[in-house]
């Protein structure tokens, strides 16, 4: 979740220009990062494969995007998951704009970071130990505000060879998330601000 931008800045500083953002994954936390192939090889055919934490070959499809309607927590959850997928699997502007409002501060804050992920051939993913808690604060005609508690374990920047470039440990973090609806009734992330 890119708007978690303070941590993003930390990573930017730590990596001297190689960026970050926020990527979350539903995969179980692990202290060592297996390569994607290893993840796949340990999975039996009768059990659903865990979603790779990251990828470089466009082999991982995006999560289903729920961006219409009034189920704001689910919409926000979907947009955040999609944005995580962008950072971990497909850091492109076009993918970014599926989930993020054009011209918003969050878009401005993450666009250059996505470019750096792409140019440096890196990916960023997050690991959590529990699902996010999302609560609607309020909604108006074309905007909605939510409070999101993320149970973040770590945020990892990794290169194509599977080397961990940087990893930040984190704990429970609370964010205010703002959704903006366009005139075609599609919702986008407009701001993600850390409040604790």
């Amino acid at each position, binding site marked *: 979740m890119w708007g978690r931008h303070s941590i993003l800045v930390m990573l930017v500083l730590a990596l001297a220009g190689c960026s970050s953002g926020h990527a979350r994954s539903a995969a179980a936390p692990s202290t060592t990062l297996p390569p994607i192939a290893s993840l796949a090889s340990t999975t039996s055919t009768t059990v659903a494969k865990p979603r790779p934490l990251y990828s470089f070959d466009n082999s991982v499809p995006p999560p289903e995007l729920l961006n219409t309607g009034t189920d704001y927590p689910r919409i926000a959850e979907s947009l955040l998951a999609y944005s995580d997928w962008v950072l971990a699997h497909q850091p492109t502007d076009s993918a970014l704009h599926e989930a993020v409002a054009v011209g*918003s501060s969050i878009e401005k804050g993450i666009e250059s970071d996505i470019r750096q992920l792409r140019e440096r051939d890196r990916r960023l993913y997050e690991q959590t130990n529990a699902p996010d808690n999302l609560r609607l604060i309020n909604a108006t005609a074309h905007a909605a505000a939510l409070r999101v508690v993320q149970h973040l374990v770590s945020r990892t920047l990794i290169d194509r060879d599977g080397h961990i470039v940087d990893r930040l440990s984190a704990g429970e973090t609370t964010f205010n998330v703002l959704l903006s609806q366009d005139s075609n009734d599609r919702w986008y992330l407009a701001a993600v601000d850390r409040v604790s």
Partner: protein
Amino acid sequence: MRRCLVILIASILTIASPAGAYGTGGGSVDNDHVSVGVTVTFPGIDSPIDLSKGTSTQWLDWAVARETSRQGDLNGLCLPPQTDPAHVVLGVLFHVIGRDRATGAVVYDHWQCVPISAPGQRPGAPQPPQLPTVEEAWRAAHLPRPNILLDPATRGITGLDTRISTEPEGALQIAATVRGYTITGTATPTGYTIQVDDEPATTATNAHFVFETKGVHTIRVGVVWHGTATLTGPDLAQPITTDIGDATVTTTRQYQVNEIRSVLQP
């Protein structure tokens, strides 16, 4: 037979009543031994805001997003108010959203069409309304400074009870105009504190204290106000009603405490 001689070292401290309204709320009012300070706590702001300082805390968090598509328009284009019917100017739509910093709630949700001033150039995002700051709103509230009522009134005696109290306040109406914006609202007292020197503060409108040492002691009485306000203004498409946080008005005064000593003489 022994005679008891009481030596009273008395210095009478004359203190002007601090009952008047707290002027501009802009800081400290010194009146010999009485001073008043106002601090505001506001969600999202880590440390209390001192109204006497030149800070300018924004009331809302703003977000602006560009509309990328709109039915009937081309890629977010719109038609702003025209000044010359013979020369139609197109614009770009922006979504301007204001959020209450206290709660995160959306309190302003407006689409704004920004004219394209030069062909082929996309206009920049509009500036959000420059609302009055939190400091300006609280200064406009003209919060009264709390009285400090003491018994004994002018000086205390070591070992004896000193009663410290303040008069409860009622809710206040806020009505002000700041830079073209109209602020109307309510400030409600939500708590009182009484503190002597560096002792822990008591949350009450009255307290008893026994001074153990003579000399000048510091007594602080604070009133915590909670404010909500509605803003209207010429560049606001809709009124904004928000929480403006809590303001603590503290009156501080020095209090002389004397010692009464019994001296035995033959």
